[in-house]
């Protein structure tokens, strides 16, 4: 009788050890890229899969990635602020603030450098940073992964996504990168305007979108060399160009920006040009969050530009402090900037916290 009991117990224990084993048959993920966007380059060592994206979404909102289990990527990149932080500087788990504003996470699959100073050359490299950063999530990846390995869901999901049982930080950042690459915004009023302007076909829903004449007028100003002259750095479907620029914020630089990475004085005070998509939602503005609202931003480019040694030559009216917009022009420009809001993007259920 004892022997039968012993074998039964052994069988039970052995079979219970297998209960979280799942198959590794990843499903290719089909990105929904808007018709007026370029193709996205996906790294060959991190192909998109349904399982990887799903895992990435859980990890993006996973607070156990932080030292005190209270902070996730989503804490400083919230959907309602277009995945940025409404605070000027984000506060880490130890109550320490950084010195730069959290960037909005929009269409990053098309970017080739990350952070305000461009110090990361890939999305995966960027994602590695915040977890061990002492002023952010402040936890070693080893400790974070150790927590995840105690969770059956993650053991299963890492296996489903990558076919590994002994997963590590490289798998975690790949999954989060896959999720972030799905965060595509291309459904704003501006997208309809862009398509109309470039003679591209509209969908049935887009044909019903009404563009206010003032929004068109604001767009004209946005592009006008003698108007707001914004288009040199913000154009195309992504509403940005891939460069670093000193946009005339200061005479001298407390934060060297790109120059702090390259150690080249000609890069001092230059920062990554951000997209203007969802700009109305992602206040405060600039690398240091110095402007609280769009009015202050517009005023800067209108009359607050400071000349310095590295100011972008494309800020052509720097010599007179800016483009000198009148009140009506500022109003129109702001109207256009509001067309860049994409509510479909921020409300997309696939981008929300799964818990």
């Amino acid at each position, binding site marked *: 009788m004892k022997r039968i009991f012993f074998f039964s117990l052994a069988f039970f224990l052995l079979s219970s050890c297998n209960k979280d084993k799942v198959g590794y048959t990843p499903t290719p993920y089909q990105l929904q890229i808007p018709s*007026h*966007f*370029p*193709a996205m*380059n996906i790294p060959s060592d991190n192909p998109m899969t349904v399982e990887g994206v799903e895992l990435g979404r859980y990890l993006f909102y996973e607070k156990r990635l932080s030292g005190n289990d209270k902070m996730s990527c989503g804490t400083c990149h919230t959907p309602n602020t277009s995945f940025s932080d409404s605070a000027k500087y984000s506060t880490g788990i130890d109550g320490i603030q950084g010195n730069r504003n959290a960037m909005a996470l929009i269409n990053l699959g*098309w970017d*080739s450098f990350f952070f305000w100073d461009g110090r990361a050359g890939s999305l995966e490299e960027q994602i590695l940073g915040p977890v061990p950063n002492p002023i952010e999530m402040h936890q070693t990846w080893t400790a974070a992964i150790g927590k995840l390995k105690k969770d059956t869901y993650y053991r299963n999901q890492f296996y489903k996504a990558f076919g590994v049982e002994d997963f590590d930080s490289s798998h975690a950042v790949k999954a989060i990168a896959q999720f972030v690459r799905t965060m595509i915004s291309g459904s704003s009023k501006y997208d309809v305007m*862009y398509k109309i*302007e*470039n*003679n*591209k076909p509209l969908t049935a829903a887009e044909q019903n979108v009404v563009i206010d004449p003032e929004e068109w007028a604001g767009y004209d100003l946005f*592009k006008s*060399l003698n108007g707001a002259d914004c*288009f*040199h*750095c913000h*154009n*195309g*479907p*992504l509403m940005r*160009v*891939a*460069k670093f620029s000193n946009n005339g914020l200061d005479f001298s630089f407390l934060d060297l920006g790109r120059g702090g990475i390259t150690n080249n004085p*000609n890069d001092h005070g230059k920062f990554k040009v951000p997209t203007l998509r969802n700009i109305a939602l992602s206040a405060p503005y600039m690398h240091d969050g110095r402007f609280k609202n769009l009015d202050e931003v517009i005023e800067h480019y209108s009359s607050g530009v400071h*000349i310095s*040694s590295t*100011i*972008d*030559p*494309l*800020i*052509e009216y*720097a*010599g007179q402090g800016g483009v000198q917009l009148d009140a009506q022009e500022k109003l129109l420009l702001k109207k256009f900037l509001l067309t860049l809001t994409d509510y479909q993007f921020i409300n997309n259920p696939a981008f929300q916290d799964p818990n």
Partner: protein
Amino acid sequence: MVKNFFYLVVFACLFACKPDPVTPPPTPAETARINVNPTFGSVPLLLDSIYQGPNGIKIKISDIKFFTTLLTNQNNNFAQVAYFDLRNNGNLLSEQTLDYTKFSSLSFILGVDTTINHDDPSAFPNNSPLNIINAGSMHWGWNTGYIFISVEGKADTLVDGIDNFDLSYSYHIGTDLYQQAMSFNNLNWVKTAAHQHTLTFNLDMESFFFNPTQPINIPSEPFTHSGAGLGTLTQKVALNFKNALSLQ
């Protein structure tokens, strides 16, 4: 029986030890590269360095970029498009896997040919310089197409011995009107690596700015974006750039 088995094992081991047949490595493909070496007069040009023109004005150049398209000779195509970006790509204009001996001459459009200038910039292949991801600020976001030539920097307009680069300049040449055809014969391809030959152009930025017959007066002519009101300056900039480009 045991002995036979032993021999069989020995034979199998020897056979297994036979080296795989050696496949000769494939011959590397021949590549033809076109470089552009920017100079200021007779000295090599460095971005962000200070240069002085004959009128005493000092300038710094922060960017030189340009497109060429339809690079071909009578019988062979070299490339559909080639993009020069000194800051990001160095002095490379184009490198193709082809036989350089087929190109004793070369013609191209300085700019983006009309047939593709107005195409959707998102629709070009990702590895094309014309794809909006790669072209970036070299594409105007509406139907006028690409910026063909972009020269940007700063000038010190006060000739007082103090470096004070108080004036930004930017010359953006685009629109179909300002495409320019160029043609070169008797090309001097130089062997620069085991399987690479290189053709080099000079780009003299001193002659671009301070062309003896039509100099650019930076203080009074700091900008053009090829709009209708600045046709004379645009034409001058486009022509000066073309004339500054020569075979080495």
